[in-house]
């Protein structure tokens, strides 16, 4: 600091509010609000459990997924239930049900995260192009926005699962196709959301103030408008993880999922359980519950995150 001048104008009015230690960003403040929210904690515990199970799956079970080792024990009318060797019994094809469930978490996590990441990356890129073009303004800006948004509108007019089914059908049956299909279905959601919040932020006072200081429009968009706009998008990504996991299961259920029988997958477990439902309802109920609880976890956490980031619910 070079030779500080005497402070002008009277004693300073003092300022630090109880909630905030020095240097607390909005995100960190949202974090501390999350920790006090029971919904967030329940959601986080479920999500965490899911992630841990997915990561350490090989340590939880001595068996391999998709091994039909005990297929001789399965008869058309009965599927062996829990025993000392098999915690939850066998599945329809004679593999260990617990192993299938645990490895299924792995698939769901990878598919869900990658698909949502694809949707977020492309959706956010389109949103930034569109929202940024309007903020920078002028005739070309409006034109670019129009083109991008009409493409997004077209994508949005196709039901997301139908879009995913079509893409999966075109790309063929492999795991990348599934991820791309589900991610693509999310692109319009992210694009619209980010564009919308950028437009809303673009009309705020600090943007006008930055313009009054001669800051370049591009800089305003990237370093002022965008950071203020990503909150809802991050929340949506969390919520979309739930949707993605359900959609992976749905695609598998429709026979468009992971074709390799050696890979455990919750949606395909549901299909296989269909014709044994009366004899062994756990074959359908357990993977169904796994899908539902995991989706619930992401949804609860996402909702809590939305609340924590929403300025209206703040203090």
């Amino acid at each position, binding site marked *: *600091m*070079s030779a*500080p*001048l005497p*402070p*002008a*104008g*009277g*004693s*300073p*009015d*003092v*300022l*630090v*509010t109880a909630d*905030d230690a*020095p*240097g*607390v*960003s*909005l995100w960190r*403040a949202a974090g501390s609000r999350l920790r006090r929210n029971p919904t967030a904690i329940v959601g986080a515990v479920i999500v965490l459990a899911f992630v841990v199970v997915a990561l350490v799956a090989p340590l939880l079970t001595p068996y391999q997924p998709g091994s039909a080792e005990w297929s001789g024990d399965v008869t058309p009318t009965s599927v062996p239930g829990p025993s000392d060797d098999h915690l939850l019994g066998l599945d329809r094809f004679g593999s260990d049900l617990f192993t299938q469930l645990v490895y299924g978490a792995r698939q769901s996590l990878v598919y869900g995260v990658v698909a949502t990441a694809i949707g977020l990356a492309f959706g956010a890129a389109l949103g930034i192009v569109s929202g940024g073009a309007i903020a920078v*303004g002028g005739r070309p800006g409006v034109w670019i926005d129009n083109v991008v948004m009409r493409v997004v509108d077209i994508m949005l007019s196709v039901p997301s699962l139908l879009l995913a089914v079509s893409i999966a059908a075109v790309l063929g049956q492999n795991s990348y196709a599934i991820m791309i299909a589900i991610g693509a279905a999310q692109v319009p959601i992210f694009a619209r959301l980010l564009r919308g919040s950028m437009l809303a932020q673009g009309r*705020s*006072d*600090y943007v*006008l*103030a*930055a*313009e*009054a*200081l*001669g*800051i*370049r*429009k591009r*800089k305003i968009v990237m*370093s*002022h408008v965008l*950071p*203020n706009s990503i909150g809802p998008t991050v929340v949506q990504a969390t919520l979309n993880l739930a949707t993605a996991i359900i959609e992976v299961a749905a695609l598998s259920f429709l026979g468009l999922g992971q074709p390799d029988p050696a890979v455990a997958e919750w949606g395909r477990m549901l299909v296989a359980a269909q014709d044994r439902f009366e004899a062994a309802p756990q074959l359908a109920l357990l993977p169904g519950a796994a899908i539902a609880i995991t989706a619930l976890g992401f949804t609860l956490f996402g909702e809590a995150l939305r609340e924590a980031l929403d300025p209206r619910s703040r203090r």
Partner: protein
Amino acid sequence: MSRARTATRPDEPLLSVRDLSVRFGLRGQESFAAVDEVSFDINPGQHLAIVGESGSGKSVTALAVMGLLPSRGVQVSGEVLYRGTDLLTCDRRAMSRLRGSEIAMVFQDPMTSLNPVVTIGRQVAEVVQRHLKVSRSEAFERGVDLLTRVGIPDAGRRMKEYPHQLSGGMRQRVLIAIGLACEPKLLIADEPTTALDVTIQAQVLEVLKELVADTDAALLMITHDLGVVAGLCDDVRVMYSGRIVESADRDRLFAEPRHPYTGGLLRSIPRLDSPRGQRLTPIPGSPTQTIPWEQGCAFAPRCAHRADQCTDSAPPLEQSEGRALRCFHPLTGAASQQEAP
């Protein structure tokens, strides 16, 4: 710090606004004149106030000078000459270079005029880096220096904080620091104290006054508060319903208001020497009770001195004795001194 600055002749005004008019309404549709026939000059170092109620067009005038009005649905005409360059017709790049470095603005609401997710330091340094072409660390140091000058203690630490960690008064100090960061020749302050509580208002005005004096900047103060005018400005333009109705230097305006509206404004502020228990005299009616200037004096519906002539035709702005007045029946010398506080 080398900056090319166009030379100004001492007698030439820094900013010269000529017949500025701002109309709202899409092209081809009926439009509404928010600002009409507004002309004023600001000389280097001069402090000019534009006074008026909400809706009088004073903020729109400031935004028009800065070129910050939206382009859709707004028609701006007239001239805004800054050192001879018309800001209304110059290109966007040139305007953007001028803003912040030559002409800066302090906004009304410190709660919303700072970006909530960017640290104070980055927001101060940003404008310094933009216009003065210095390194990041130099900009940061200059920021600390600026915050210290506007009376923010422990400025180095405050630079790393976020706007929500500062009080309203502190944030307004930050905005003033940002506004004056590049030592602009003209600072436009749009009701810089309105959003603050009364005790903080005085401190912030004091800061503004000292910094403007330090940097020799000219000041265009937009306010509805004649108390602010008395403490800060040399010259006053009173606006009503989009037009300037009275123009005079501060002392003469306070001592001898000529326009009934100015007189009304002065009577509606409390004074130390008025007797205890005496009620203030408000201006009757509200600014919404107005008639279009084309049909007469917009203030006529609320004016105690109204005559038939006032609702027949619009009074012109007439110059006399270095002041200007838009009124058919001004307060006369004696009456105005008696009526005015």
